[in-house]
């Protein structure tokens, strides 16, 4: 399973005075098993781009291949695509509607036309994957849960469809630090167990740096940069210019370098920073003695 996007363009309000090119001639490929992070400031076209990947939006021009299926083709069956590409929207807890948590999670699998046993098995598996105890939560109303729990239910509803590509649009927006970490750990464990492609849209540079194999930088509807986190976050000036930043550890490394203490290595998280500082300090002590 791989994704190939060719010259994708999407225009909102075409033909009106306020028409905008939300996605502008974007092309990329994603290999099987890759973890992609997409960053970009508000209105840069991230959400529009990912909504094309499971056929929710139709492009103005360009084509998208999921595996060998061209999902931008006219005669394609949408349910086939949605089975393979799972999309978790921003604030997904607002889409919950069923009486119980298990029924809500079963909505997706039911739409795929699976058998009762299969659905039940998938619901249990999805709940386990998002860290909700089946016995405790399955029979409860999703509306009486906490914000973080609601979000897990909503994510479980997509996971239960067992997509080969999982796309998450800012899954941690508006959550407290604990829930934030829980959701990220959940994404990691899902990827670990289910494999496949994961695409994470996030405003948190630290999260992206830590989790992604490659980072896509969106700016003004265009794919401005593509590279490993180390490559992308090396250019702090560029990221700042388009309204983004670098992970805190990388910023510190850059500040240190500006003051004459160049690290000469990639520093994206606290551990790497700690190692660098420990090495530098012990080196300084040795040269003194």
């Amino acid at each position: 399973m791989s994704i190939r996007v060719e010259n994708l363009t999407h225009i909102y309000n075409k033909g009106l005075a306020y028409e905008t090119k939300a996605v502008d001639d974007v092309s990329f490929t994603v290999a099987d098993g890759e973890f992609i992070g997409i960053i970009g400031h508000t209105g840069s076209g991230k959400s529009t781009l990912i909504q094309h990947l499971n056929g929710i939006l139709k492009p103005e021009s360009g084509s998208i291949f999921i595996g060998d299926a061209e999902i931008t083709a006219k005669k394609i069956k949408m349910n086939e695509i949605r089975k393979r590409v799972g999309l978790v929207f921003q604030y997904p807890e607002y889409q919950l509607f069923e009486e119980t948590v298990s029924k809500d999670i079963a909505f997706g699998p039911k739409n795929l036309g699976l058998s009762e046993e299969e659905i039940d098995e998938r619901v249990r598996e999805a709940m386990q994957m998002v860290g909700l105890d089946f016995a405790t939560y399955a029979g409860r109303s999703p509306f009486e849960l906490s914000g973080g729990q609601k979000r897990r239910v909503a994510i479980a509803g997509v996971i239960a469809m067992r997509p080969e590509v999982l796309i998450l649009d800012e899954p941690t927006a508006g959550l407290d630090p604990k829930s934030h970490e829980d959701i990220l750990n959940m994404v990691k464990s899902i990827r670990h167990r289910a494999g496949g492609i994961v695409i994470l849209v996030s405003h948190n540079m630290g999260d992206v740096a830590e989790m992604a194999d490659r980072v896509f930088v969106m700016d003004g509807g265009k794919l401005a940069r593509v590279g490993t986190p180390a490559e992308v976050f090396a250019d702090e000036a560029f990221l700042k210019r388009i309204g983004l930043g670098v992970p805190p550890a990388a910023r510190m490394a850059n500040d240190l370098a500006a003051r004459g203490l160049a690290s000469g290595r990639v520093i994206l998280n606290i551990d790497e920073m700690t190692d660098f500082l420990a090495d530098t300090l012990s080196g300084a002590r040795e040269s003194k003695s």
Partner: protein
Amino acid sequence: MIRDITLGQYYPEHSRIHRLDPRLKIIVTLVYIVSLFLVKDFIGYGIVLVTVGIITAISKVPLKFMLRGLKPIVLIIVFTFTLNMLMTQGTILWEWGFLKITKEGLYNAVFMALRLVFLIIGSSLLTLTTKPIKLTDGIESLLKPFKRFGMPTHELAMMMTIALRFIPTLLEETDKIMKAQQARGADFETGSILRRAKALVPLLVPLFVGAFRIAQELAMAMESRCYRGGEGRTKLNALKFRGRDALAIVFTAIYMAAIMAERIFI
């Protein structure tokens, strides 16, 4: 798909008509509607056409927008036209079985259809040139006399304003939820009526929940800014009667005089 729906047909421009006092515009529109029923022949419609034409030209609203307002009532116009044409007794022009077109019928049909068209065009001129907020302001102000009889005019106007304000918000919300459920394999577009009605549940429940959430948040925001209804409340943009409004009154008076004169003397 939902993005394509345009609601409230205000056409943003800075014409003299746009800047008129909304209260006056509402009253003038009412007067205009009455005048349409005073017209008794096509010469009268000539006067109406010229007047509407002049106002449209001053308002700078493109003709295309004006005619767009007619679209939803095309069916009603055709219906009225056909009924009038076939049901009026008189000199027969054409006959086929029980269907017959009379001279009087044809005249009546055209006359009635024109009345409907002018009715719609005139009232769309009001909504095209007046912001919904101004419109509710005007309605509130005009209803003020009824306050003495216990009518909560400010509250009614506030409700209308809030409703108008939240139409786009709710549309956006609907669009979002629809997409989210489609991503989970929901199908809103195919199947029997019963199936489609059932498919709406995953859309309507979150929408209602969301509407209540929005209402609660708005109420909280209003409370925290000490909103306590219309008593003693002043306005930032108070409605003011200006010179151009007086001019509009004169214009309206002349128009009405012309319609009356035409009715009586010609």
